[in-house]
């Protein structure tokens, strides 16, 4: 006996589907799948109401016992999927077939016959899933383009180009926040509830509010509630009802409530400082931040009042202004305890975002904290970033720090065709150790290269005789010194050409980011990895902040920290300006991703570049040779290397 079936019909949007409903009501357990199609296609279907007789016989050859409407390829595939999902008897009727009583009755007879003939087992509707599961599935569809069964979402873009969810997803264009964006003259519209479920009456976009039904039509068919066509750059999605419900359930949660750290008047922002950081750097960072916040608040102090005092055009925009409030979160004790301290601070005063920051050691604990609580962290001052090699979202770094430098060194060695033994010297537990472990990891993939490490004892300085001894023991031809200016002080490599055959690398970040004459830096074999602006340009580029700093009586001591912190604050402002009154943290990150035009204002890095999902802005470094003191003016040789490793 026929227990159940799925009817696929191709109805007119908004029309009563009498036939389909009739069949559904006649035989209990039958499921109705509405599949709206474009006007043109529907017209074709309507011409062929008689053809399902032929199709029925075709279906007898199908294992699933389905009646197919062999129309366009896309619809065929869609039906095939529905059949696989339901494993019942499936009838794909034409639009007219499902709209008339007589044809419906005829269908029922045919179906019963098919049921008797094939006696298919019918799987009942899937169990009802909870709201949260539905949202999770929707998130998976939105972000990864993967359906519940692990198959990729299928869609058609530009009318006829098939796209799989593994190629691109909703997130690719609409962003993690769903607030959309622009590229050139191609605009992606916002898909958060505030945008979807309210009418749009701007100069650029007019439509009434979507409801669930019309939203389904928009996603499946590319039509607004008015029946006008959406851009064909928006794909038309083939989703089963449950998947559609999941996606819509997720969209209802997407950027629906303002993120924490925000009041009517204030926007709370935190920065992090740990014990044992250089007091000069700490002072430099805080002075810049306080100055920047004070400036910003002074400039915008009256903006919100303007809303009440005058017929300003789009006055609602003025409501986006908030006073920025800076919270300095001081971390004490060992890094293992930082997470708990951060949570404590955050519970006391949630912040909307974090900016800059300075800690002794790895940034990882703060990185993980921000990732867990979904707090944007804009450009911390660190050479030891977290999240490398992951898809983490919430922390934006200047670069991969010493990881980048280690890859640049490896790329330079490969270009020189210098394999063989490399000796690394570093101090354990400090950022130099991170550089050393990164290098070891990087060259593990390169044939013929072997690494020996030498850990410098705490408090010790590099000693020429000892170094040469280590080189000899390790049979190294290349040396990397992950050491600070202090640790290198007083060491000269003059006359060591016989003992060290290859280059000696130094890290500019380890030396403080600014080239201070180090006695060791003599002779052409010493190479400096330098991700920063070349020394000869540093004065000029620092001019971007010099006057601002001077007029606020901030001492011009630590150029690197001053420049980076100023730029971090500027980018926070840039991002907040772009998100306007849409205070969603994900949107802040999405907006920063599109801030490439602001890359050139960097004070320290010659080339930053932003891009969606890119979390480390500087992608390369200079290798500077000829590091004699006069190089401050013009190094003889500086090569920009982007490591392809």
């Amino acid at each position, binding site marked *: 006996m026929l227990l159940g079936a799925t009817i696929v019909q191709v109805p*007119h949007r908004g029309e009563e589907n009498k036939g389909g409903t009739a069949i559904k009501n006649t035989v209990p357990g039958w499921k109705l799948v509405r599949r709206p199609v474009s006007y043109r296609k529907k017209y074709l279907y309507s011409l062929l109401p008689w053809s399902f007789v032929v199709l029925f016989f075709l279906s007898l050859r199908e294992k699933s016992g389905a009646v197919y409407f062999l129309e366009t390829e896309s619809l065929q595939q869609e039906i095939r999927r529905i059949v696989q999902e339901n494993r019942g008897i499936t009838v794909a009727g034409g639009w007219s077939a499902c*709209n008339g009583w007589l044809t419906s009755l005829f269908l029922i007879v045919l179906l019963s016959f098919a049921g008797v003939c094939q006696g298919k087992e019918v799987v009942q509707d899937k169990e009802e899933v909870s709201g949260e599961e539905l949202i999770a599935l929707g998130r998976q569809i939105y972000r990864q383009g993967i359906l519940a069964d692990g198959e990729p979402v299928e869609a058609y873009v530009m009318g006829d*180009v098939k796209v799989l969810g593994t190629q691109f997803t909703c997130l690719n264009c609409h962003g993690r926040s769903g607030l959309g964006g*622009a*590229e050139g003259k191609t605009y992606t519209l916002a898909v958060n509830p505030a945008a979807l479920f309210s009418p749009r009456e701007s100069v650029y976009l007019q439509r009434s509010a979507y409801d669930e039904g019309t939203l389904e039509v928009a996603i499946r068919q590319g039509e607004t509630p008015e029946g006008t066509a959406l851009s064909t750059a928006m794909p038309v999605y083939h989703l089963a009802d449950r998947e559609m419900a999941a996606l819509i359930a997720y969209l209802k949660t997407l950027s629906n409530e303002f993120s924490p750290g925000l009041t009517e008047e204030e926007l709370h922002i935190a920065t992090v400082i740990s014990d044992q950081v250089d007091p000069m750097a700490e002072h430099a960072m805080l002075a810049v931040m306080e100055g920047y916040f004070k400036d910003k608040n002074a400039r915008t102090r009256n903006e919100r009042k303007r809303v009440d005092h005058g017929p300003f055009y789009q006055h609602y925009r003025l409501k986006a202004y908030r006073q920025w409030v800076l919270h300095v979160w001081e971390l004490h004790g060992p890094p293992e305890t930082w997470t708990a301290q951060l949570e404590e601070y955050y519970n006391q005063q949630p912040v909307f975002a974090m900016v800059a920051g300075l800690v002794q050691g790895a940034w990882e604990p703060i990185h993980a904290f921000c990732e867990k609580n979904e707090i944007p962290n804009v450009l911390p001052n660190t050479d030891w970033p977290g999240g490398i090699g992951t898809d983490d979202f919430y922390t934006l770094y200047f670069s991969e720090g010493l990881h980048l430098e280690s890859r640049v060194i490896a790329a330079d060695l490969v270009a020189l065709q210098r394999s063989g033994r490399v000796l690394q010297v570093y101090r354990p537990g400090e950022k130099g150790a991170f550089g050393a472990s990164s290098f070891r990891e990087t060259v593990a993939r390169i044939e013929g290269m072997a690494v020996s490490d030498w850990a410098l004892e705490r408090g010790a300085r590099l000693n020429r005789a000892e170094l040469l001894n280590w080189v000899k023991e390790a049979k190294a031809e290349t040396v990397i010194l992950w050491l600070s200016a202090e640790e290198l002080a007083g060491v000269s490599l003059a006359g060591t050409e016989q003992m060290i055959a290859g280059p000696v690398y130094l890290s500019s970040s380890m030396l403080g980011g600014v080239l201070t004459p180090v006695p060791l830096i003599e002779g052409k074999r010493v190479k400096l990895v330098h991700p920063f602006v070349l020394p000869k340009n540093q004065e000029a580029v620092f001019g971007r902040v010099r006057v601002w700093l001077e007029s606020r009586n901030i001492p011009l001591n630590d150029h690197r920290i001053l420049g980076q912190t100023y730029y971090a604050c500027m980018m926070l402002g840039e991002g907040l300006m772009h998100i306007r009154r849409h205070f969603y943290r994900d949107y802040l990150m999405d907006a920063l991703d599109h801030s490439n035009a602001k890359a050139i204002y960097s004070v320290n890095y010659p080339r930053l570049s932003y891009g*969606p999902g890119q979390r480390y802005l500087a992608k390369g470094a200079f290798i500077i040779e000829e590091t004699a003191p006069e190089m401050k003016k013009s190094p003889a040789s500086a090569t920009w290397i982007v490591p392809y490793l």
Partner: protein
Amino acid sequence: MIHIENNIYSTKRLPVTIIRNTPFSLSVISFFLLLTLNVTQAMAKPRYNRTVEEYKIPDITLINQDGERVPLVKYLDTEQPVILEFIFATCTTICPILSIGYTNLQDQLGAEAANLRLVSISIDPEYDTPEVMKAYLQRYNAQPGWDFLTGSIGDINVAMRAFDAFVPDKMGHRPLIFLRSPKEKTWVRIDGLMSGKELKNEYLQLKK
């Protein structure tokens, strides 16, 4: 123009009219079918700008997804038809559509696709390393004949300028497609996103 739009309007109403009054004659149906053909023609009108241009290929060396050096002049001096686009791997909105257009074209052409040179040039060269480009091509199921090229920022800027496609900021980038037939030295420059059919038609015109 107004006339055509009227036709669209009437076909929108069409199915309702026919089906509600079932015993409509075939002649009426075929009459409306003719209208549909008319609409199809109107819809086939390209949504993009198409011009024919002459470009001088710059003497630069780029790097492909396998990390191999590719001298551009020599690479494009080929007997195969060439289609060239500027994209970047983390691009939103435009590049995914351009790239899926390549995937679709290769699919449609089947074995013939091997005789077509598809070129994507990165405009975010420092992020788009060979490793990133290779993963990108895999994601789009690229078949042999489709190369993704990167290079130094200087060289990439030269390449963009050579095709009058320079943008100072990659986020301001336009959907440009360049096609060249083996015989001609001129390029067909297309500004605008295309459907699969449109791209295929442009490709077939190259072969004429």
